[in-house]
């Protein structure tokens, strides 16, 4: 956990500049700059289709031909590197360049159907725009255009109209160079050249939607967006992605109060220009199955109630419980909402029993987060990953659990970063990062970290090395302590990468027992004073350290707590039965946007806004704030904080209810500069027993509640299979293909077996929450537990 910032390093890395003259104007650019970029710096836009700043040049479309003094033929500006003193003449000052570009534009339109009036891209189409700026007003082409059947599916989500394609190869290069999913290829030749996939291998990349966005024509379209809107009828709002902690900048486009699509937005520090398909396509949930009105339970049944009545009933129930109430905040809250829960718990309810970890968790993890993560400044950024000599992943599968981290690590690995993954097997993601597996039994990561080979310790000792821990460290006893010790020993920076978008923000906002906002230890007098000052209360009125994690859930179940305030929690996300725990309290208030297992049993249900209906902030895994604005300003529902403020009024307390007030109050409190909680290791004995251990995590595309209503996206998810090594299959008498069943205390899962010899022995992997494999519900076990494996599909 050290920050290495050598003075002068920045000066040394300043690039050598060369001077180039474009259309008579001199500009100094770093050596190695492409002519097209140098011209951009002067505001000179050279036409282009195949050029993309994040893809290797290919110089295929020839739209960017320019004249270079002393070079006989026009050259492609997208592939030509500047040299000192180079004289470039673009279409603005050279007839040769202009005529060459016009010629190419005329050619590009030959076989293009010119169906702009019915094309999704019409209105935001580089071909359309550039044809207007550099093309001939009328075509001289009177022959027949070549035609194709259209559209064809390159995946369930991505449709291809081959007639519109200009063969720029952006999509194929993206698939190959960025995503590493080389499933798209150019096929055939000449005018018959077309993008395609192998017959039995659709373009089921987690990143496939980016190809639609970078397609400079309307050749690639989204199955969900196709024919839904014209770009010029859309209203665009910059937003941030709520699906994971990668922190992507997005653009949300809507029309008539309906989101029509989301695009990756340009953020070089975070997602560059990419995002994953979940972030791009999974937004229907916001528009379906919403809770419309407050509800209260009467005679055992929920009925619609007015807001004043519902607030009144909720406040009465919570007040009756007083400090014997507990607060559960899901990991999907914004910073502002999580802060409002943290504040409401301490000020209105007077309890410190609060936890945001709606997933497998541990006390050790809590202590680690309190000691090292909560309220800390950004220590590891995306740029650091790119510069890192080595990165060790601990219980972390970036392609599934933080896809933009995956893309950046893949990019880093191409320029020399060594990626090590401590886990129970290889994966498609790991091979795409040229990664090396360090074998560790699921749950035994701690001992594997302690026994790390000297060669890897050395690699991690190099300046700039990073250790990244995934959310599954909570299921590996001792792993947090071991990773912390390894970081201490090697000097590698330590990063915790939660899966959900709201987790880091909730942690920093104080939605975890023992931690006031900003990572302030609740036992620290100054921390209490600062919080109390911000909240306008007496420090002595703030509760003492409360319960979190399993202890909190147990106290609910045992009846030691009387009420629960539950906000944005999906019961199935817990390894244990949350509904049974909530059954132990008298009164449950659910603040939710969708009907759920919790609203089913709640006494009061208060509907709130989804991300498109409110402003807010997420903290990504780096700790970088990702603020976003309100897409629908006339939304019927408000944010959680506003509902909590209404409740607080029943205590005669005023609480900030708007995002700006909440931000201002958090800002006034500032970061915690006093002593942090020191890491308290938790003695554990991890003895799951002998047999086959279960490795499992949530795949990017699975049965997550925020992916509901997206059949095209769901169809691109990976098949549900069990993976294990051939040796394990043999040892347990399993066939090498066909169905196997995996058994746990609550039942069994029957799936196809895929032999994967990158897996270590005595481990079986299952997707945690995919079609046909809901591990918690179906097996009653979790990551690192022992299961029984049997051949055949019988359950």
């Amino acid at each position: 956990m050290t920050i290495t910032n050598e003075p002068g390093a920045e000066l040394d890395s300043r690039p050598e500049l060369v001077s180039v003259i474009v259309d008579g104007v001199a500009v100094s650019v770093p050596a190695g700059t492409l002519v097209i970029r140098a011209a951009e710096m002067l505001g000179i836009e050279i036409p282009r289709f195949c050029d993309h700043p994040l893809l290797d040049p290919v110089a295929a479309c020839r739209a960017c031909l320019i004249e270079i003094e002393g070079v006989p033929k026009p050259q492609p500006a997208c592939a030509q590197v500047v040299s000192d003193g180079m004289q470039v003449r673009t279409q603005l000052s050279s007839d040769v360049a202009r005529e060459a570009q016009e010629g190419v534009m005329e050619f590009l339109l030959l076989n293009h159907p010119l169906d702009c009036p019915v094309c999704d891209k019409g209105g935001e189409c580089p071909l359309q725009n550039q044809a207007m700026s550099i093309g001939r007003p009328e075509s001289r082409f009177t022959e027949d255009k070549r035609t194709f059947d259209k559209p064809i599916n390159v995946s369930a989500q991505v449709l291809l109209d081959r007639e519109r394609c200009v063969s720029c190869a952006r999509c194929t290069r993206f698939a190959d160079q960025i995503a590493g999913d080389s499933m798209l290829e150019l096929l055939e030749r000449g005018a018959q050249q077309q993008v395609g996939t192998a017959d039995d291998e659709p373009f089921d990349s987690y990143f496939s939607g980016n190809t639609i966005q970078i397609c400079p024509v309307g050749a690639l379209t989204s199955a969900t967006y196709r024919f839904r809107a014209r770009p010029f009828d859309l209203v665009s709002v910059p937003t941030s992605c709520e699906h994971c902690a990668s922190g992507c900048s997005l653009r949300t486009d809507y029309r008539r109060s309906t989101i029509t699509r989301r695009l990756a937005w340009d953020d070089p520090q975070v997602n560059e220009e990419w995002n994953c398909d979940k972030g791009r396509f999974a937004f229907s949930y916001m528009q379906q199955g919403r809770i419309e009105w407050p509800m209260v339970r009467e005679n055992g049944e929920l009925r619609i109630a007015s807001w004043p009545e519902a607030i009144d009933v909720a406040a009465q129930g919570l007040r009756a419980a007083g400090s014997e109430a507990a607060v559960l905040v899901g990991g999907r809250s914004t910073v502002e909402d999580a802060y409002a829960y943290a504040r409401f718990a301490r000020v209105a309810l007077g309890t410190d029993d609060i936890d945001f970890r709606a997933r497998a968790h541990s006390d050790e993890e809590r202590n680690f987060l309190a000691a090292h993560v909560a309220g800390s400044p950004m220590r590891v950024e995306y740029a650091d990953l790119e510069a890192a000599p080595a990165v060790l992943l601990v219980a972390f599968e970036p392609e599934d659990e933080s896809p933009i981290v995956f893309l950046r690590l893949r990019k880093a690995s191409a320029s020399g970063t060594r990626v090590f993954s401590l886990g129970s097997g290889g994966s498609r993601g790991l091979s795409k990062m040229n990664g090396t597996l360090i074998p560790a039994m699921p749950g035994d990561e701690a001992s594997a970290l302690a026994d790390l080979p000297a060669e890897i310790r050395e690699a991690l000792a190099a300046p700039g090395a990073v250790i990244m821990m995934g959310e599954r460290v909570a299921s590996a006893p001792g792993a947090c302590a071991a990773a912390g010790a390894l970081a201490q020993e090697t000097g590698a920076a330590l990063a915790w990468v939660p899966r959900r978008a709201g987790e880091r923000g909730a942690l920093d906002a104080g939605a975890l027992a023992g931690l006031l906002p900003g990572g302030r230890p609740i036992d620290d007098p100054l921390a209490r004073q600062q919080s109390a000052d911000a909240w306008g209360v007496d420090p002595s009125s703030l509760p003492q350290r409360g319960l979190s994690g399993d202890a909190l859930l147990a106290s609910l179940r045992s009846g030691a707590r009387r009420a629960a305030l539950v906000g944005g929690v999906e019961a199935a996300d817990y390894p244990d039965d949350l509904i049974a725990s909530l059954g132990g309290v008298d009164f449950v208030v659910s603040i939710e946007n969708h009907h759920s297992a919790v609203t089913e049993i709640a006494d009061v249900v208060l509907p709130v806004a989804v991300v498109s209906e409110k402003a807010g902030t997420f903290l990504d895994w780096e700790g970088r704030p990702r603020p976003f604005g309100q897409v629908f300003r006339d939304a019927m529902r408000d944010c959680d904080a506003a509902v909590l403020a209404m409740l607080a009024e029943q205590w005669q307390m005023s609480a900030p209810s708007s995002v700006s007030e909440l931000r201002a109050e958090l800002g006034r409190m500032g970061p915690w500069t006093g002593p942090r909680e020191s890491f308290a290791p938790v003695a554990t004995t991890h003895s799951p027993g002998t047999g086959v251990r279960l490795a499992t995590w949530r795949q990017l595309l699975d049965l997550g509640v925020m992916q509901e209503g997206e059949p095209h996206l769901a169809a691109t998810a990976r098949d549900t299979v069990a993976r294990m090594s051939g040796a394990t299959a043999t040892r347990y008498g399993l066939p090498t293909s066909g169905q196997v069943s995996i058994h746990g205390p609550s039942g069994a899962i029957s799936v196809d077996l895929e032999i994967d010899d990158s897996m270590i022995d005595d481990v079986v992997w299952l997707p945690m929450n995919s079609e046909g494999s809901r591990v918690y519900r179906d097996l009653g076990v979790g990551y690192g537990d022992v299961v029984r494996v049997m051949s055949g599909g019988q359950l």
Partner: protein
Amino acid sequence: MGTPLTPVITEHWDRPDLYTLDGYRAVGGYQALDKALASDPDDIITTVKDAGLRGRGGAGFPTGLKWSFVPQGDGKPHYLVVNADESEPGACKDIPIMMANPHALIEGVIITSFAIRANHAFIYIRGEVPNAVRKVEFAVKQARQAGLIGKNIKGSGFDLDVVVHSGAGAYICGEETALLDSLEGYRGQPRLKPPFPAVAGLYASPTVINNVETIANIPYIVDRGVEWFRGFGTEKSPGFKVFAVSGHVKRPGIYEAPLGITMRELLDYAGGMRDGSSVKFWLPGGSSVPLLTDEHLDLPLTYEAMAEAGTMLGTGTPMVFDQTVSVVKAVTRWLEFYKHESCGKCTPCREGTYWITGVLEKFEHGQGQQAEMETLTDLCGQIAGRSFCALGDAAATPYPAAMKYFREEFEASTHTSADEQFDPIASYIFAAAGVR
């Protein structure tokens, strides 16, 4: 008769066993190899440089210079790739060389590999000629059995493996970087340059790519010396050339002669035009070079003289057409070829060949428009020099040259089809026999 024929590569083609190791050895084969292995590799490069051998694949780039671009002592593997993907319409000289005298190629491969310090050589042969593939594979096998290929060749410490690779039928794979992609197992499309193959070619390592005839020249240059080689040809085009004459001549075939011989002389060797026929137009080296007419028959066939006449020596495989042939039809056939073979990578070639072919087909059927003659000129101008590789340039070549000399035929094709202007039967070889 001014210029004599000078058979060198073709000297012993009348030996039925020349394709075997014994046959080749019987006429002095593999002596040059001994000489080469005993010398400094750099001296071989210098020899080839001094000889002034120019690439016989069409571009005429100085071979020794190309070899000298390979960085030596760079710690990377070097590769020699022989471009035997002869697919140019009209070109038929590499395949006969491989059929008749494959060991000259193999010996050249070994010497060249030794010179550029390559331990792997690849011979990429056009897939449509399995007979040539089999001949070369047989020759490689014999050479390997004789210890001429393999580890520590003839005790020199030099190791070489030779792989014969068969293409899959794409003209574009004759473009050297597309050939490399194809050889690596990818779809054959030209690569962006730089980096040039001499620096980062096959498997991103320094690579020399030479034509079959170029490499087949090497043993003779090494064996007989620079003076001897420069005794043929001209200052800028030294040496001899395997000319393959085709078309309306009495004896189409291979004629090896010094560079600088005239087409008229070659025509004489080929027995002259068929009876009652005269030269209408001819192309010095494949369909990719601009055509010439009977007024150019006395020009020396050298790189420089052909350039001066507005054409290129190309592959040095003259196609001769007599007065029975419609220029419009010939140009249309060539463009159909380029359209079919355009790889699709770059816009001008992919779309341009598609468009031009469509327009030319209208002219062929007497349905061209006057204005489209200028459009075609424009379109060729929009391809030439703007496409990704030379295939596009080649496709832009036939029409402007045809227009230069035969504009009236295109004008006639705005109302009369090519077949009406020129009875196609008359151009067939069996026309003289009266067969219809």
